[in-house]
């Protein structure tokens, strides 16, 4: 069992089936997301992205939205089946940019979604393959390019913190406690759940009582975000970093009730196909013993 765990955390023996699994989960997740976004009430009060450059009023027409969904479904099917990849990824990327721009233009604000850039990164990998015809580059790049996008997002998050608060970002325990209180109370005023009101009392006070512990965790999060690019150099660190980042998101969820599930970390860093193959791997070990 221990060699299998070691093999997993050192990211050895990544399965070829991983790519198909990634595409399948990615497509289903993306389709569900754009379906939900297109069927939310859409307002263009603060045009962003694609809607900043072009008039998006057209996409408020229901017929156009149904057409977009139909094309998205068709392109996703081609993408999962590994057919016409440049065409399907181009269409998926364009639809993704349009839909997430529509969502970002509502003036309500949302957690940044990586879908569009992940698909664009894959599209670049396939374009390079079409030019170079080197299959081994494609197999590596279609995973490695989205990993670069994910690492870039964490780097940007770290840079924003350093740019706006300086190196003392992690020392702001009082401000952090306030943000925790705010997040919990916002959830309470949304749901009316009394347990959140109680949590908004004790948890921020606990943070204020233990400033050094708070500094330690905030510094850890900052360093983790800043250093994620290392996985681009050392593939062996990918899984460990993936789990550390997942733990960070879990911590954010516990402290702030921000329910953001980092699907892309699970798909590109954590090597989920390993768990699907785990019984087979363990069985093989036993047989070979």
């Amino acid at each position, binding site marked *: 069992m221990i060699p299998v765990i070691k093999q997993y955390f050192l990211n050895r023996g990544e399965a070829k089936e991983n790519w198909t699994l990634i595409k399948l989960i990615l497509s289903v997740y993306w389709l569900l997301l754009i379906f939900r976004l297109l069927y*939310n009430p859409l307002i263009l009060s*603060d045009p962003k992205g694609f809607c900043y450059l072009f008039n998006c009023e057209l996409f408020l027409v229901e017929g156009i939205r149904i057409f977009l969904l139909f094309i998205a479904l068709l392109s996703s099917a081609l993408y999962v089946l590994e057919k016409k990849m440049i065409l399907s990824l181009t269409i998926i990327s364009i639809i993704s940019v349009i839909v997430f721009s529509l969502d970002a233009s509502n003036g309500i604000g949302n957690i940044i979604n990586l879908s569009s850039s992940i698909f664009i990164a894959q599209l670049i990998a396939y374009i390079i393959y079409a030019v170079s015809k080197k299959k081994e580059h494609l197999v590596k790049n279609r995973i490695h390019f989205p990993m670069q996008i994910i690492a870039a997002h964490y780097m940007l998050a770290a840079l924003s913190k350093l740019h706006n608060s300086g190196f003392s970002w992690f020392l702001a325990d009082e401000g952090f406690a306030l*943000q925790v209180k705010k997040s919990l109370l916002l959830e309470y005023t*949304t749901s009316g759940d009394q347990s959140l009101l109680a949590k908004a009392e004790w948890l921020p006070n606990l943070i204020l009582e233990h400033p050094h512990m708070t500094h330690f965790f905030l510094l850890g999060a900052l360093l983790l975000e800043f250093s994620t690019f290392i996985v681009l150099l050392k593939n062996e660190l990918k899984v460990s970093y993936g789990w550390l980042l997942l733990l960070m998101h879990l911590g954010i969820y516990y402290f702030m009730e921000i329910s953001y599930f980092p699907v892309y970390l699970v798909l590109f860093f954590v090597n989920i196909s390993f768990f699907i193959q785990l019984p087979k791997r363990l069985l093989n070990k036993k047989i070979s013993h």
Partner: protein
Amino acid sequence: MLIPRWWTIGSLSEFNTWYPEFGSLVWVFKNLALLALSFIFLYFFFLFRKKPNNAVFDIFITFVILSWIIGEQHPFSRIPMYHSFPNYAYVFSLSDKNDRLIPLQNVSPLGAAELSHLYYTSLYNHEILYGYAREDSFNLGIIGADMINNTTWINPNFLADSCFHLNRQYFFVSDKGFEVINKVFYDSCN
């Protein structure tokens, strides 16, 4: 106080705004430091790599640079969430005429976090300075009316028939611990 912004990609004019007396000097120092860091980075970059492969960082670097320049325009972003922890926080809520909480989920598809974004977007659109409860009653009246007029977030029946308050709680930390000041900034009862 010299806030450590010297390593960023800020322009000379930005540096002159940040540090009016010695902006140019800090800008030159920043560029020299960036150059030195680039050399160190490239050194480790080639040290780690067994064979040259130009695609290891291309997308990463391009995306970081473009996002930093373009800002909050999908698919780019500087990921500004919690980039600073100021000593104030606003919590928004709905309450009835007896000041009992009306859970937002009963009357709106939006959560209170999204309601906060509506508040900030409205402030931004009206070019009103905000934070630390510096928004005065007049401006809060404008924002409250603006938010209520954006009826897409609130059940129209509730809006038409109910007597409710739109509240803002201003939290801050003082020597005594957490303190709060409540403000009703839209009152449908009057």
